[in-house]
C-alpha cells in the first residue's frame, strides 16, 4: 500500500559507517518503538539510506514500507563498497514516519572476526514535526560527553559526521577534572564526510593524565551547526569497538 504523503513526516538522521572489512552494519527499524500512546496499524514507515565514502555517494537503499507491527532491516555494507573494497564512511537516513510519531533508529555494527555486537543510535540533525525545535532549542551545536574512559585496555575517540552539503567548522574541547578547558584547533569537516579523532592523540600533553585519572576528564564538540557526534571506545586487545554513543547537550531538555 502506498502511504498518503499528507499523513507522513520526515526526519533526517546521520550515522557513522565503520570499516566494512571489519564490521557488518545494518539498520533495524521497529516503528512501534516510539509509541507515545497506543495506536493501531494505520501508519506507514519507510526510509531511504544514502551511503557516502570519502564525501562521495556510493549507494542508495530504499527500504520496504511497513506499519507499526512490522520491521525493516537494511544492510549498509553493499551500498558502501565495490567488489573487494574495504571502506569506511557515513550515511544519511531520510526516515518517513506516521505524522507526529518519529521513530528511534538503531544501527548495529557486528565485528566480523569476534561476533561482537555494538548498537548505536542514529541521531537526528534537523528537527522533526513532533519536536520541531528541539534540536536547535538546546544549543546542540555544542555537544558534551562527561567521563572519558581511557585505560590500558581502552582508547577513547570522538567521531564526527557532517551530514550537510557544505563544510562545517568545529572544535573539540577537553575539560579537565577541575573544570579547566583546553581548546583543540579550529577544524573543518568536508561535506558528507566522517572523521575519527583520537582524544589522547589530539590532546597529547594530557594523555598521561587522562589515562591516570581514567573517566575524570570530559570533552565537548562545538560546531557551526549540529554535527552528528559520537564518543567511541576501542578495546585495544581485540581492536574492537566496545561502545559508541551520541554526545548530548549540556543540559536536560
Amino acid at each position, binding site marked *: 500500500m502506498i502511504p498518503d504523503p499528507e499523513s507522513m513526516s520526515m526526519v533526517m538522521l546521520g550515522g557513522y559507517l565503520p570499516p566494512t572489512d571489519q564490521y557488518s552494519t545494518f539498520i533495524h527499524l521497529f516503528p512501534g518503538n516510539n509509541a507515545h500512546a497506543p495506536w493501531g496499524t494505520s501508519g506507514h514507515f519507510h526510509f531511504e539510506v544514502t551511503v557516502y565514502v570519502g564525501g562521495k555517494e556510493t549507494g542508495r537503499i530504499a527500504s520496504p514500507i511497513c506499519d507499526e507491527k512490522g520491521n525493516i532491516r537494511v544492510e549498509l555494507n553493499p551500498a558502501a563498497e565495490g567488489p573487494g573494497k574495504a571502506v569506511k564512511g557515513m550515511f544519511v537516513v531520510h526516515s518517513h514516519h506516521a505524522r507526529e510519531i518519529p521513530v*528511534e533508529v538503531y544501527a548495529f555494527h557486528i565485528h566480523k572476526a569476534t561476533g561482537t555486537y555494538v548498537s548505536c543510535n542514529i541521531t537526528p540533525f*534537523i528537527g522533526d514535526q513532533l519536536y520541531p525545535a528541539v534540536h536547535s532549542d538546546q544549543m546542540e551545536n555544542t555537544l558534551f*560527553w562527561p567521563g572519558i574512559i581511557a585505560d590500558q*585496555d581502552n582508547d577513547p575517540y570522538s567521531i564526527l559526521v557532517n551530514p550537510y552539503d557544505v563544510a*562545517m567548522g568545529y572544535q573539540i574541547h577537553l575539560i579537565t577534572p577541575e573544570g579547566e578547558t583546553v581548546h583543540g584547533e579550529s577544524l573543518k569537516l568536508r561535506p558528507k564526510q566522517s572523521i575519527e579523532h583520537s582524544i589522547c592523540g589530539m590532546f597529547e600533553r594530557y594523555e598521561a593524565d587522562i589515562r591516570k585519572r581514567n573517566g575524570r576528564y570530559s570533552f565537548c564538540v562545538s560546531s557551526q551547526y549540529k554535527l552528528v557526534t559520537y564518543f567511541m571506545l576501542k578495546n585495544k586487545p581485540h581492536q574492537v569497538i566496545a561502545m559508541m*554513543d551520541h554526545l548530548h547537550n549540556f543540559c536536560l531538555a
Partner: protein
Amino acid sequence: MEKAQATRPDGTGADASANKDSVVCYCFNKTRGDLDASYKRCGSLAGVQAETRVGTNCGGCRLLLESMFGEAPGDILAMRGSPLTNSRFCVKPGTRIMKGFVAADHELDTLIYASNGVPPQFGNQDTTIPVEYALLDANGRRVTGRRFEWRTGETFCFDTSKVDIPRPLYGMFLFQIGRENYGASRFNLVWTNGVSSCSTHEVNDSGRPSVVLPLFADRAFLEGPNRVFVSVQNPHPRPIRLLFSLFDEANRPIAEFPIALDPGSTRWLDVNREFYGPALARAPSARVAMRIASDPVDVSQSPTIYFFFHNRNTGIWTANHL
C-alpha cells in the same frame, strides 16, 4: 594538536581571559577573545557585527552572541519560528532527577561521571548548584547517597567498587540537581569488568511505553558467542506492570511474560535464558524478537531500559539505552 589554552572556570587561572580561543563564529573564524576585544571597542553587538561580520552569514552562532552580549543580533527576531534556527538556550530552572542503571556483582562494576562544566563559548560563569544523589537497590530501597554543593567545573564520580554496598546489586542511581544556570547536567554511566568498559547516558524514562529490542534471535544466535541482558526500571512513584512479548518475523505471538515493578525498583534479566530460550523452545525454527511494553500501554508508565551484549569469546560488554 591542542592549543593548550587551559582556562579555569572561575577565571582565576594564569590566563584570566577564559576560553578566549574558543571559536564562536566559524564563518569568519572569530574567537571569544576576538569578540570580547571588538565589543570593548564598539560597545554594542551591532558594532561587533559591523566590525567582524559575526552572525551575518550562516547564523549558527547567533544564540551565542545573544548570550555573550546580552542582546539579540539585529535579525534574530526574524528567525523566530524557523525549526532550523529558532532557538533559546537550555536554561532549565528547577529541580530535575536523572536516573540510570547500576550493576555491582561478581563481574561488573559501575561508574557514574558528571561534569559541572560550562559550554566553552560562554566564558566564565558560576554554575554552582545543590545536588543530591542516591543509590537504590533492586527493590527501590536507598542504599547510600549524600547531598553536596557541586561547584563550577567540578567532576562528579561515583564508583561502586569504592563503596561498601551489598552485592550483587542491580539498582537505580538518582542524581537530583537544582539547575538555574548554564552548567552541564547529564551524567554518563560506565559498566566495566576491569578489561572491557562500555558507557551510555542517564535516561529519566524512555517516554516510550512499548519498545522492541531491535534484534531477531534464532537458535544459531543462542548457540553463538553473545549473551543479551536488559535492565528494566520503574522511575515512577507508583507500581507498573510490564509485559515481555516474544514474536516472530511475521509478528505472530510466541510467548508472553509479565513482570511487576514497584516504584524505584530494578530487574536485571538474562534475555537468552529467560526469554529467547523459552520462546525458541516453543518455535525452534523461528527468529524471535522481544517487545517490552507497559501493561496497559501508557506513556506515563514508560520504563527505563538499558540493553547489553556480552561476548563470551572476547569478554567484551557493550551497552545502549532503549
